[in-house]
């Protein structure tokens, strides 16, 4: 009864209601969109950092990261890989060591990677991150993929022949000719300058390092909480050392934490601005009706009745407005999620904490991004209307009627 009354009451003054509706609705839409954009920024930075090559967690032999010695390899990489596979976690095994590359009169030191091209393609994005040429083929064919700056300093392009000189694990001199199959896009300073990626089989021949795996990188693409992923990794390799991306990239982790705080401050400001706007509209709309409340009171309605009426009206208004706003906001956020904002006009090829950043800024639409603004706006609507209603309810009917 009271709900139907409130609903009818709303449409008594169509213009006022429509203005309020528009204000609340638009604010809700803007909040949903900006919330989704901010969430997208956060997620994008993390996934850029992890999806490409690092992964969300890594498994190494204890102390490997301190000295990065070719001898300090994982005890039982096959067992760890099988265990991860059984848990449905994508993983790629890699070997590393240092050596020398030369092309004509140029030469440079490099960090060699031995990778399984199929695994890298399945689990990580590096293979799709090519500036020129293609990633390594499935079979070992003496192909090599280079970081962008390394390729530039050697003055090579796709198809160039490169001399590779390394000290093998047995102390002997490993040297051979490799053909550049591809050059990576900007990834991050250390990969750009140092990475020389080989097929694992080629790597093990060159370095005489049969079976030596130094790193297993895990990527669940955000499906698992980081703690759960780390625990799964520990279960797979109990004698190994497990580190999450936050430990592997502490600078980035700090930046992401800082960004998190920044995002919350921004959202708080957005919410405040939108909330105050809605509150203003609701206040004005309710103050306008003080005379009406005076008459109702004079007719015998108690203060609680007035308060209840106004609250239910605001509830209705908020419901309709935030529903419309949510539709609009969801559409906007969905558009930004699918199409994204192209920021490349402002910055090309930039990196955050040594990780290349995609200039296409995409929103990330979650239940939270849609729900929080709706609930907040609804609450603001009701609270903002209660204050003038409370004032009106307390007023002497005669004075309320004379209120202009």
């Amino acid at each position, binding site marked *: 009864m009271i709900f139907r009354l409130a609903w009818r009451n709303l449409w008594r003054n169509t213009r006022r209601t429509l203005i309020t509706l528009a204000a609340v609705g638009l604010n809700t839409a803007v909040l949903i969109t900006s919330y989704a954009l901010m969430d997208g920024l956060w997620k994008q930075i993390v996934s850029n950092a992890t999806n490409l090559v690092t992964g969300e967690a890594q498994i190494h032999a204890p102390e490997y990261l301190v000295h990065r010695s070719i001898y300090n390899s994982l005890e039982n990489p096959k067992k760890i890989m099988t265990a991860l596979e059984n848990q449905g976690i994508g993983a790629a095994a890699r070997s590393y060591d240092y050596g020398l590359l030369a092309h004509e009169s140029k030469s*440079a*030191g490099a960090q060699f990677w031995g990778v399984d091209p199929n695994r890298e393609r399945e689990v990580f994005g590096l293979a799709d991150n090519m500036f020129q040429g293609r990633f390594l083929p499935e079979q070992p064919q003496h192909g090599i993929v280079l970081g962008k700056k390394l390729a530039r300093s050697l003055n090579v392009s796709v198809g160039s022949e490169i001399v590779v*000189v390394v000290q093998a694990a047995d102390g002997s001199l490993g040297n051979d000719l490799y053909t550049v199959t591809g050059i990576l896009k900007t990834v991050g300073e250390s990969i750009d300058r140092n990475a020389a990626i080989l097929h694992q089989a080629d790597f093990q021949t060159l370095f005489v390092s049969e079976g030596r795996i130094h790193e297993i990188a895990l990527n669940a693409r955000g499906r698992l909480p980081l703690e759960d992923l780390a625990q799964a990794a520990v279960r797979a390799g109990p004698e190994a050392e497990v580190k999450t991306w936050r430990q592997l990239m502490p600078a980035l982790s700090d930046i992401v934490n800082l960004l998190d705080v920044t995002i919350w401050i921004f959202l708080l400001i957005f919410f405040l601005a939108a909330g105050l706007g809605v509150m203003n509209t609701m206040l004005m709309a309710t103050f306008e009706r003080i005379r009406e409340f005076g008459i109702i009171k004079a007719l015998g309605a108690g203060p609680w009745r007035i308060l209840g009426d106004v609250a239910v009206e605001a509830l209705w208004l908020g419901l309709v407005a935030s529903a419309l706003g949510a539709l609009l906001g969801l559409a906007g956020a969905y558009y930004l999620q699918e199409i994204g904002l192209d920021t490349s006009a402002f910055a090309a090829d930039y990196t955050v904490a040594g990780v290349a950043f995609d200039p296409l800024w995409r929103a990330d639409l979650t239940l939270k991004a849609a729900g929080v603004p709706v609930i907040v706006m609804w609450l603001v609507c009701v609270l903002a209307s209660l204050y003038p209603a409370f004032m009106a309810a307390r007023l002497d009917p005669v004075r309320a009627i004379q209120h202009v």
Partner: protein
Amino acid sequence: MNRRVAAIAGAGWIICLAVVLGFSLPSSAQDQALSAQEILDKVDDLYRGESSHGKMSMTIVTAHWTRTLRLEFWNKGKDKSLIRILAPEKEAGTATLRVGNEIWNYLPKVNRVIKLPSSMMSASWMGSHFTNNDLVKESRFTEDYTFEKGFEGAREGVQVIEIDCRPKPEAAVVWGRVAVAVRQGDYLPLESKYYDEDLNLARTMTFSRIQEMTGRTMPTVMTVVPADKPEEKTVVDYEEIAFDLDLSDEVFSLRQLKK
């Protein structure tokens, strides 16, 4: 980070050892009043401007492997040296040429000559405990360091003179201090200790098996032990050496390197 990168570079440490440490001091060094500078200069003068050619074996012991290389070397003057690996088979024919501050390597397996980048200067030579810098930097040893006599007297029953080498302030050097101990009388080197820029001991080189070779009395075995890995070492054992040969500059050319 890439300390153990295989940079097959300098044969030059062979020269530098000889130069710095009085390797080929003749028995004529009877002048007891020589200053530190004079002792090293004498070695220097004696060695430089001359040439040498010989064969040696180098045994490298690390925590993970032990191997022995047989090497043939040619030196001329202060700046030129060539070293070629004779054995083992996998590396046979591999050669390193140094002219001045530049180092080239020839790799027979791929039939290519590559120039060593400056970033590889502190890398190990063939996995040994010598670096490429040992070659390039120490050919300038007398220019970059000042010398002073230190302790003189008996040490483990041998009368020794210690010479303290300190870098000149403006010199770009690898070692913060080098302490050389030579035998009194014939100035044959016994031991030298290399300290890093923080003056921590980095490695110790000892000289042994003093014997006559081509008319000169000299220690024919050198052992290098890195201070941070006392269980590792590199042992150089001279098999034959000839001095004052007529070597043409052509020997030290890139063309010759490939042969």
